[in-house]
């Protein structure tokens, strides 16, 4: 296809020139993947072929657009309205998300628009309708926006299964993926099931540097508050600034510190996932209207609507991941040919090194990313159940269809049958449900035994499992909604505790009807707000770069002088960690022995290693008292010294510990819960659940413990174990660390070393107390009894 004259005229009237990649995409045949930086007109490029093809009209649905954000679909609908109106095209554009009214949904099923904008979850739901063949039979194109983001998690796997379904319902449809810059475009094309790759001009290199500050970065901590004066100066010079911070709690604290020093009263907003939706939307609207000079944000702004006025991005804290840094930088500058401007503020001395290493990677265009594993089976289980909701299916045909989805291209028939068996009978060793199977085979086709199950299954669509969140309100009638905190955080609060939310300090008063009630407490210092959820681990590639930089004194001149001096002192007192050598140190300090292992394996893997090693140390009688994991090092303190770490790092022993002892760990239970919800073992909205008879529902931990005891080889436990190799347990990276460092170098020293010193100042220590929980509970119960005057 080429650009028809009326379209060229339209571009010309606007004073625009089509980008070369927009024309490339128009001419392309078959499936394509467009890689373009932010501001490159990706979305218009994705729709141009549809607009051109739809000049002559089309009966039924022609183009399906899928994006990770509901907000994006609304924005796109507005943007498309203009060319459609001005070119007088016979096209109806509608969106279909969780927010779409029921009446509108029903109408869309009967009379679909030409262009439908949706999310992966809504697509999965639509595909579960009996009318799916009629709705999607006329489909010609699918546009997958922000595919790099979708491919990072299970939403992408579900979307690819949906795409495979669509290809069956509408043979010959073409798929177009739109992605920001990624490290491995071919892998993303394979994820789509194969596609020709079109690269847009990446534009000029960004203008990115560390923010020069009067004070050096502190030894530990993660706040970045030392740089407040310089950050304010940068905000003043820029038009609009986004300040990215890694966690919600840090964002709250930084926002407060920024306002404390904001003598000019610059309009600065706050945006993160714990804020009430209203509050977030207000900030977004103010940004869109150009009313804010800066917004302090977390990953909640990583994706989203382009704000043309943003011309500076400041990253507080180490970026953890080069690709994400590049994508964040891209949010500054929406003039395609101008360089993006970004400044980085390391939060502490170790992060200075990481920031320098990340900047080098940005300049060398060396992006990182973990290779994607095969498609997860819990998502497939859900897909099988939803497919049954649409109508009876043939197992062989569904297996063949699933294999056309990129993530499932190497799925075995045995794996598929396991999932089908789970969906049908629960897949238990004890065959208890033969009479009550969920799916049953009749006349060669699998179908729901009880059609009433459809409602429950549809309610469970999706792969995002949120932590239970509780609303936070000011006490009293109609108190303002401030935001939400995780239930686990709320459970740790005692009346009178203070924490930050929405930029203000509040006092916890109590829990009422599942709402956290607070009062204003402007004068008190907040207790550290730890409702932030989970921290990211530094990527493998970036960790390797950091280690290489530390280990090569000839390159230390690129570091700030105070950081270079610190490493020079470490080289004199002990030694520097070198690539290929696993350095560890033992030294006494304040009557205890300390062991530091410089593994550079990311905080999740080192946390897991800490759990496993302290268990072995306990068995060996070394009396471990606690440990702390950062992205670079593991620190364990104990009564007796570690003199030889090699037996503690024995690969087989660690693996045995993972399967055995760690299986009871909270992180594993959390992983299992997600698997159980996604696969459909339990409903995320158990009928009669949260709101009414609470005694009807029970924790998934009980199911996990029961399965481990009575059916240890069950499919869901196998999926859980697979997930534990990555993610929060990240056992693969422990193995990778051992592979990458074949030699051990253990040093016995007489005092704290320079490299270890910052560790001793970090927060987040994990105490090891053999019978820890029990002793804690006893102490708390005893205190309560004593306070009440009872004994």
């Amino acid at each position, binding site marked *: 296809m080429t650009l028809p004259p009326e379209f060229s005229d339209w571009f010309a009237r606007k004073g625009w020139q089509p980008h070369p990649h927009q024309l490339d995409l128009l001419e392309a045949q078959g499936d394509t993947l467009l890689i373009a930086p932010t501001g490159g007109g990706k979305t218009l490029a994705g729709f141009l072929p549809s607009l051109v093809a739809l000049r002559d009209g089309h009966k039924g649905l022609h183009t399906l657009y899928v994006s990770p954000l509901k907000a994006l679909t609304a924005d796109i609908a507005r943007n498309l309205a203009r060319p459609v109106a001005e070119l007088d095209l016979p096209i109806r554009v509608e969106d279909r998300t969780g927010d779409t009214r029921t009446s509108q949904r029903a109408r869309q099923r009967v009379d679909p628009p030409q262009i439908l904008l949706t999310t992966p979850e809504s697509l999965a739901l639509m595909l579960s309708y009996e009318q799916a063949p009629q709705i999607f039979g006329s489909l010609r194109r699918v546009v997958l926006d922000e595919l790099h983001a979708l491919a990072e998690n299970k939403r992408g796997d579900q979307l690819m299964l949906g795409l495979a379904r669509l290809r069956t319902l509408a043979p010959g449809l073409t798929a177009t993926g739109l992605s920001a810059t990624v490290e491995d475009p071919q892998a993303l094309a394979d994820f789509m099931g194969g596609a020709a790759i079109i690269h847009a001009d990446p534009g000029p290199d960004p203008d990115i540097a560390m923010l020069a500050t009067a004070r050096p970065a502190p030894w530990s901590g993660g706040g970045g508050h030392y740089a407040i004066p310089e950050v304010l100066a940068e905000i003043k010079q820029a038009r609009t600034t986004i300040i990215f911070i890694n966690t919600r709690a840090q964002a709250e604290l930084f926002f407060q510190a920024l306002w404390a020093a904001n003598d000019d009263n610059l309009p600065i907003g706050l945006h993160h996932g714990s804020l009430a939706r209203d509050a977030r939307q207000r900030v977004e609207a103010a940004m869109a209207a150009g009313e804010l000079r800066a917004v302090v944000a977390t990953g909640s702004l990583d994706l989203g609507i382009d704000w043309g006025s943003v011309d500076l991005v400041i990253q507080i804290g180490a970026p953890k991941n080069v690709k994400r840094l590049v994508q964040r930088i891209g949010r500054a500058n929406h003039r395609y040919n101008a360089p993006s401007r970004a400044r980085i503020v390391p939060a502490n001395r170790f992060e200075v090194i990481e920031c320098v290493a990340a900047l080098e990677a940005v300049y060398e265009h060396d992006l990182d990313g973990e290779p994607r594993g095969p498609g997860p089976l819990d998502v497939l289980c859900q897909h099988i159940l939803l497919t049954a909701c649409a109508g009876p299916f043939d197992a062989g045909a569904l297996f063949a269809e699933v294999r056309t989805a990129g993530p499932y291209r190497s799925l075995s028939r045995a794996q598929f049958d396991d999932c089908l068996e789970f969906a049908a*009978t*629960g897949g*238990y060793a*004890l065959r*208890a*449900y033969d*009479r*009550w199977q*969920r799916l049953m085979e009749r006349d060669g086709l699998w179908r729901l*035994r*009880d059609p*009433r*199950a459809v409602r*429950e299954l549809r309610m469970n669509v999706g792969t995002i499992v949120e932590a*239970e969140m509780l609303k936070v309100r000011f006490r009293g009638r109609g108190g303002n909604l401030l935001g939400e905190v995780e*239930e*686990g955080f*709320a*459970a*740790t*609060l*005692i*009346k009178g505790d203070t924490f930050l939310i929405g930029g203000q300090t509040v006092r*916890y*008063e109590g*829990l009422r009807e*599942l709402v956290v009630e607070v009062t204003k407490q402007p004068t008190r210092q907040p207790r550290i707000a730890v409702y932030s959820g989970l921290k990211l681990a530094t990527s493998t590639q970036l960790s390797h770069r950091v280690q290489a930089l530390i280990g090569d004194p000839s390159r230390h001149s690129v570091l700030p002088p105070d950081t270079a001096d610190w490493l020079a002192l470490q080289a004199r007192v002990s030694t520097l960690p070198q690539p290929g050598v696993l350095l560890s140190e033992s030294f006494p300090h304040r009557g205890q022995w300390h062991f530091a292992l410089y593994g550079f394996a990311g905080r999740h893997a080192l946390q897991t290693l800490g759990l496993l090693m302290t268990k072995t140390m306990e068995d060996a009688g070394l009396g471990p008292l606690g440990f702390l994991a950062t992205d670079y090092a593991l620190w364990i303190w104990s009564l007796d010294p570690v003199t030889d770490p090699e037996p503690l790092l024995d690969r087989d022993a660690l693996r045995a510990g993972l399967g055995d002892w760690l299986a009871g760990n909270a992180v594993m239970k959390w992983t299992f819960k997600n698997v159980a919800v996604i696969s*459909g*073992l*339990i*409903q995320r909205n*158990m009928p009669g*659940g*949260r709101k009414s008879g*609470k*005694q*009807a*529902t*029970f*924790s998934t931990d*009980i*199911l996990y413990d*029961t*399965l481990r*005891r*009575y*059916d240890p080889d069950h499919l869901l436990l196998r999926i859980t174990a697979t997930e534990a190799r990555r993610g929060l347990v990240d056992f693969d990276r422990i193995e990778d660390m051992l592979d990458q460092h074949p030699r051990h170098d253990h040093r016995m020293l007489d005092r704290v070393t320079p490299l270890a010193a910052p560790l001793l100042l970090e927060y987040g220590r994990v105490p090891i107390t053999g*019978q820890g*929980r*029990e002793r*804690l*509970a*006893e102490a*708390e*119960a005893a205190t*309560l*009894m004593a*306070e*009440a005057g*009872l004994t």
Partner: protein
Amino acid sequence: MSHPFAFAGHALQARPSGALYWPERRWLVVADLHLGKSERLARRGGSLLPPYEVLATLDRLEAEIVATDPAAVISLGDGFDDDAAALALSDMLCDRLRGMAWGRRWIWVSGNHDPSPVCLRLPGETVDELADGLVLRHQAGQGPDVSGHFHPCVRLAGDRRRCFLVGRDHLILPAFGAYTGGLAIDSQALAALVPQGLAIACGTRALPMPVGTVRQAGRSGRHA
């Protein structure tokens, strides 16, 4: 380790498992076994939960019987998740229950989930309530009485635990069954029955703590 306490003039023991032991009579009382819960959910077209909850519950109950050698075992209502669940119990599990009941009294107090007498394959007798020194019924009524039904839970050191709730008029037992959730002790229903008294948390040891003080009200989170 059990926690000894007095209720309505009788010396009782809260066992860490959630069972109540009455030494004077050698009675073992357990509430809300909900046997057959996974079968009932499946029958109604719901989730196919791991079908091991009867096994898990009986394993724990058997351990209690071995430990206390009671003269009588009393299921304080909702022993079965519904009447049909009792009928659906496998022969093997029925045999096991009969073995556990051998040589002692076995009493099923009716609950709201299992109103009818149990079937012939099962041991024991069914009663609506038991008044013998203490009044034992499924759901708290005119006190003083011993009951179940509410599945009381308490939050302790960040952990949610099943608990006994001991007030002046009511002693409420935790649910003993494997697949049972809980109701926080400061919820309206429970706070009305036991505004002040003692909660005894289950776990490795039975841990007593006060109920109805100001601080407690803020700490026991509800949890699904």
